[in-house]
């Protein structure tokens, strides 16, 4: 948890919260990161991390891992996303799928070339659709097929896509859905805690209906002080707060909130780096 607008703060609202222990020093964080670097985004990797760092919750580890993996993908994705590379992946898939229609060839291919399976599925599906009607498939069609592989006209491809999706813990519609649910869950958790404390607040939905242009999860109708910092609003992030994501959030959200509502509080439910720059 962190206050925006002034110094760092540890978790605020309730001391019994699990995330209180979640503040990692930068050194600790680096170590976790080192470990995650070697792992592929499979379900199994979470277990490995958990064994290595038993004191941390699975969610924290997964969150850190996921963030790191995303950074890594961002760095390497351009390598894969070039027409001739895509073409070669597609041709390999076609030939291998033909040879072994039931094998998870696409998943294996993704692991072999170090690409997230869900992203590989997207690339291949995209290429497949282009081949079907010649034009560029619309994003919404693509997304709906990824979400619901049974819509894919080609059975073999559909099952390959499905395998990729369920085996990827960082990307893909399944992960998005999980993240969304977790995010919502934590928002609800936050509401409950606020209600428990008898704090009056407006949630995002209220704010939208009132026409606010930027809406944090919570606006406190009466500001409170958390560890000496005035808090006007609260944003809940069901993730781990690392530098990069924090920076992004700052630019896209937190400063905007600050500009409208003054200083506020950000909760990283899965912990954050202790010396995060919180302005």
């Amino acid at each position, binding site marked *: 948890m962190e206050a925006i607008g002034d110094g760092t703060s540890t978790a605020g609202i309730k001391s019994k919260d699990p995330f209180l222990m979640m503040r990692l020093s930068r050194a600790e964080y680096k170590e976790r990161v080192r470990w995650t670097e070697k792992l592929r985004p499979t379900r199994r990797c979470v277990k490995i991390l958990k064994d290595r760092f038993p004191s941390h919750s699975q969610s924290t580890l997964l969150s850190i891992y996921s963030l790191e993996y995303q950074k890594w993908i961002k760095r390497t994705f351009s390598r894969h996303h070039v027409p001739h590379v895509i073409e070669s992946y597609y041709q390999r898939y076609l030939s291998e799928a033909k040879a072994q229609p039931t094998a998870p060839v696409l998943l294996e291919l993704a692991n072999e070339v170090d690409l997230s399976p869900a992203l590989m599925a997207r690339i291949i599906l995209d290429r497949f659709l282009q081949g079907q009607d010649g034009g560029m498939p619309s994003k919404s069609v693509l997304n709906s097929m990824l979400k619901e592989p049974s819509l894919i006209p080609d059975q073999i491809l559909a099952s390959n896509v499905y395998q990729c999706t369920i085996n990827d813990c960082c990307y893909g519609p399944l992960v998005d859905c999980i993240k969304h649910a977790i995010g919502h869950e934590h928002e609800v958790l936050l509401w409950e805690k606020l209600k428990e404390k008898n704090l009056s607040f407006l949630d995002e939905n209220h704010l939208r209906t*009132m*026409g*606010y*242009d*930027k809406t944090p999860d919570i606006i406190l109708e009466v500001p409170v002080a958390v560890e000496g910092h005035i808090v006007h609003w609260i944003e809940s992030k069901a993730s781990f707060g690392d530098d990069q994501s924090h920076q992004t959030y700052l630019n896209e959200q937190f*400063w*905007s909130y*600050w*500009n*409208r*509502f*003054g200083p506020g509080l950000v909760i990283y439910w899965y912990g954050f780096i202790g010396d995060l720059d919180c302005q």
Partner: protein
Amino acid sequence: MAALLESLLSQKVDIIKVVDWLKSAGDEDKLSISELGLTVHKEEFVPFLLNFLREQSSQALTHGPATPAKTPSRPRPAAQTQVFSEKRGCKSASGGSGTRAASRVQLFSPSFVSPGPEGSHCLSGVTAFSSPSSSTTWSPASRPSGSERRGGQRIMLGDYMVSPPDFQHSPSFQSQKSRKKSGGNMSLGGRGRGGHYIDETGGRRSVRGGEGYGRIIEQVSPPSVGQLNFNNLEEFPPVGSSPISPAASKPTRRINPTPVSAERPRSKPKTCFTSTPFSKPSSPLSGVVPLEGSMTGGNSLSLQEERELLKKEKTKRAQQVGSPQPSSLEPCTPTKTVLKTGSNVTPEQQTTCPEPSKVTFSLELDLLVELYSTCISENLVPNIFLELFFVMQLLTSRSPHTHDDEQESLCAAHSHSDILERCYLRLVHNCVYFAVKVLENQFQLVAHLDKCTLRLLGENERVASFSPHLRDLLTQAQDKSTAKLSPSVSTFIHSVPFQPDTDNRSNFSSDKAFHIFKKQRDIFYEVLREWEDFHKEPGWNFDTALGNRIRGMMSQMTSAGNHSHFARLFLKQLIQMCKGPRVNSTSGDAPDADLLGMLGAEGLGRLKRLEERLIQPHGVVGPCSPPSFPGYQEFFRDFLQAASCCQLNQHLQDSLCQQLLQLDEVSILSPPASICERDKEEEEDGDMEQQDEKQRFSSVLLLARLLAKFLGFISFLPYQTSEKPSREIQDTAIALRSKSVPVLDVCAVLRNSIRRRRTILTVPWLVEFLSMLDFIGPRLLCYRTTLGTLLLLYRRLVLDRCEEMCYLNKLLMVSVLGWLFQIPVIPEDIFFTSEFTEVAKVEESDINVAGLVSDK
């Protein structure tokens, strides 16, 4: 005038008669003394007297004590200067670059003064110190330059001022030299500016050597120069920090023209006293702005106080240090006699300790004290604080030489020849005597200074040795004093909250406009934060760093038609950040002395900082700092300049006008009828209710002043020029501009306020508005009438008279008005003229005002 003074001094005319004449309300402008065949106008006599005093003391003030060199500059006021026709003045001024600074200097514009028979009229040279820095502060780009122009106007002053470049004009010099007095100086090198004046009037007018000096000095050794000035004036601390400080010249117009040269690099103190700085506008360097004075009406007091503190500190140091720089520059000796002395720079000069027993001419001095005090009491001087400042200078003056005796004899020798040329204020003893007497006389005013200042004054040995009575009074006053220097308010940026009522989608014409505004709000704060983080870093330039972003924002705004929304955000943010009494002083929050005491040991570091503060006058500018945009106001000003978006300005103007007029209508509860007596007792705090009312009033007043300043800034922005335009251009511009309706009907607002006795609220904000005028503005009928009305109002606000208005209210008005009259853009001739008596008829009862005292 000279004749009158001469007759007074030689006791041919009864002082009482003259004092009565001075006191008589405006109508009796002329004094005729049939025996002597004299007819004198007040507006001529007063400037003459002021200049006479400045001139007289120039020598004494010059020598600074210690270290920093003293201030040669002040002498400048060459009293003798003649009058020049305005034009001339202008021209000459322009010639001398330095002038600008001087702006105010000449309070009395030459034109007014008619050359007395003797010819020695001084112009008033007020000193302007223009410190370059100050210029920076000024906001409007034009402004800075403006100052220059002013200089032009005020020629005289300018002369003093040092503008380095000017030297050259020697040609004129020559002529001047002819002047008797100047002759001596000139040789010294004083010639600088003086030359200008000269010619026309006939060589006779001597130019003030002093002026020359100022300049010279600077040129020569810039650093030292600066110091010199300082000392003189106020004894600013020698600290190297800023040579600039010279600003001290505060003494009125004439006094110090200190030349601070533009060169001073970063020196922070940019003080300019009265005058405007000439510095280039752009210079970002100037970090600090003076502010106080300008900002808050009440401030002048505090300035004064601070100044005094500074002086004292300086004196102390000086004593310790001892060695004075050579003030070779001695000022010009005003009188011929003096000449020689001046020249010697005696490095070793030790300060002579003033002794009451060594006072000479005490009869005459008493007379001068009486005249001078009357002028102050009757508001015949343009700015009472400036005079107070001058008196403080006299009090702390040092006599450089040990040759007192010689001097005395010199003086004596000449004394018979010309009464006016006797050295009444040449000796430290006399200066101190005079100063102490004036302080005694003006005790009511002095008693309103803050505690620290009172303490310093009370502890001053000179005061003690010359008037134990005054010392006792000061000690008592100290306990009663409630005046405080306004603490600097530390501002933490608070954003303007999003208000669904005005900010949600339904307030925008389209989704696009709504989304663009969303981004603009974020950009605005981003820019603000960036400014806050970096603007004090050297080399940081507002326009370079933020200009493009701001202009990009403006062009998007134009396409989306979001100006009114942004104008609202902008104003709200402005009010939020800048409304405090004194905004964000650069020096950060320095604790005041008492606080420091309480802090004990922890405070060493702080003590140190405090000391630095004492030594370098940070934000404080002279008694009359030019208008400025201190603290965060600077951001808003620079933002508007960078944006230069006419649509935005129009929206802001509309909104500012509306808000101002609303504020002007705010109901003010008058304090109980017994105000007057109560005031006498230092305005007891009154009950809670009254306290709240005061609080509310001062908040309204501060807000109105802030808004008015920005309204003035925006309104006159299109007309700001860096140079004062020539007469012809001015005439054309006047003809042109008189056809369009001014943003605010200031005349009506003022008239209305006078009628309703609400001037205590209206005048302070009008003053802020008018302080932003461009050069031509004051010549437009509506502003001219307003200025004239304000002048009449000023004259009637005699502090000592117990009228319906309470003392502090009057003090506030007197200080803001006094400040206004010193601003460079306001033509100097406005003050000493009787023209307005007819132009603006103020009804007798007008002056009363309801209202509470605001900022103390």
